[in-house]
């Protein structure tokens, strides 16, 4: 059971909707907060595309935080999302090496430590998602079930094939996934920065 506590009914409903991936709620969150995030990022050396990327990352981090259980929102949802995006963008700018940033004096706002950690990992997460999405459909299914701890026998039944075949496929799919992640230049960059 997720205990969500927001400061007003609208934010409460939007957070509950986000947790269900409810399309109307997520659209409402876009309308509520994206324009001001885009404006701030543009004012701070970024583009609309940058702002849209970090906006999605922030919503995924927020989703994961809410999904964990108790979540108490102590300011408005709009402000909270803006603070998350602001921190994400500041850390993104700082990680771009060799690029003098006029924002080096800006300190990120203080967020809950666990959420801060989720934001720090979000660029790595996006990288994993990207390479996961690049796998074939069958590979994605097998990996997804495997990560969800479905047994090889059950996976074989679902795909109407043998357990032995699934075992080999799982090895190949995972090897491909891990190799493509490791070969991505961003992966090394993130490892260096972390």
């Amino acid at each position, binding site marked *: 059971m997720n205990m969500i506590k927001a400061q007003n009914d609208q934010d409460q409903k939007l957070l509950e909707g*986000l947790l269900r*991936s*409810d*399309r109307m709620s*997520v*659209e409402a969150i*876009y*309308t509520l907060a*994206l*324009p*001001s995030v*885009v404006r*701030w990022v543009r*004012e701070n050396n970024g583009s*609309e595309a940058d702002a*849209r990327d970090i906006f*999605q990352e922030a*919503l*995924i981090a927020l*989703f*994961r935080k809410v*999904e964990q259980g108790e979540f108490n929102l*102590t*300011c*408005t949802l709009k*402000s*909270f999302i*803006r*603070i998350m995006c*602001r921190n994400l963008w500041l850390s993104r700018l700082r990680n771009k090496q060799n690029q003098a940033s*006029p924002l080096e*004096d*800006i300190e990120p*706002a*203080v*967020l809950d430590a666990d959420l801060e950690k989720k934001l720090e990992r979000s660029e*790595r*997460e996006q990288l*994993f*998602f990207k390479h*996961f999405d690049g796998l074939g459909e069958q590979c994605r299914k097998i*990996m*997804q079930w495997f*990560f*969800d701890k479905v047994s090889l026998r059950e996976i074989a039944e679902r795909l109407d094939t043998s357990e032995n075949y699934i075992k080999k496929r799982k*090895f190949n799919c*995972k*090897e491909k*996934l*891990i190799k493509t*992640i*490791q070969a991505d230049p961003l992966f090394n960059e993130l490892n260096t920065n972390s």
Partner: protein
Amino acid sequence: MIDPSTYELIEKYLADAMSAEERRNFEEEMKSNPALQEEVSLHQEVADVLKGDSVHELRMTLKEIDQSYDLPKDAPPTAKVRQLPFRRLAAIAAVIAVLISAALFLMPANSLSSGELFAQHYEPYDMVLNQRSVEGDLSLSQNINAAVNAYESQDFEQAAILFKKLSETQNEAEVYRLYHAISLLSSGNGEEATRALEAFNTTASPLYIEQGRWYLALAYLQNDHVEKAKSTFQAIKEGGFRYKEAKEILNNLK
């Protein structure tokens, strides 16, 4: 690069399917082999990120909405005024009424009055502070939270009082001084806001100087100090906070 047998071991280790002895040996091996340790961590991390249907559902939803969601076109200038609370709106309307009647006699027909320009461009600065708890100082935490709440709920008179108090007691007072001044401006108290912003700008750090200039220029506009407003808008650097709007205002003030 890992060979299939090491892969098997990693899977077995992460699935917690090793015997106690196998586990001990594997952990010993990891200690002396950082590459193996990294590989195991990566496998674990990837599994943690990708497990569960719900996050993938959300990603799909986000992707679809992001493709279809267009940012609103720049709202017409009056749109920004729509959300102003009644008290502020009344204060601003009174200023505009006086300025417009003066403008009818004094300004060229195609220019906008300073009051109109103020109303078109003014909106309070986004709240960048979040609520927090300051370790060991409950009353300070409460004061910060109360000030942020007042500002966010657009009770600017109260916000002005609370931010002033914070700026007098805090070491890191700069941002509170800025919010104090903006709260004054937002509650229709233009003259006091002007003094507060003038003082703020003499010591402002690079972090807030541009915001300070923008709001001081607007405060001058609100008080019909057109020349001072012009020179302050001109001081906003290219690419700085609200630079484009400042240019637009300067064109309209000509």
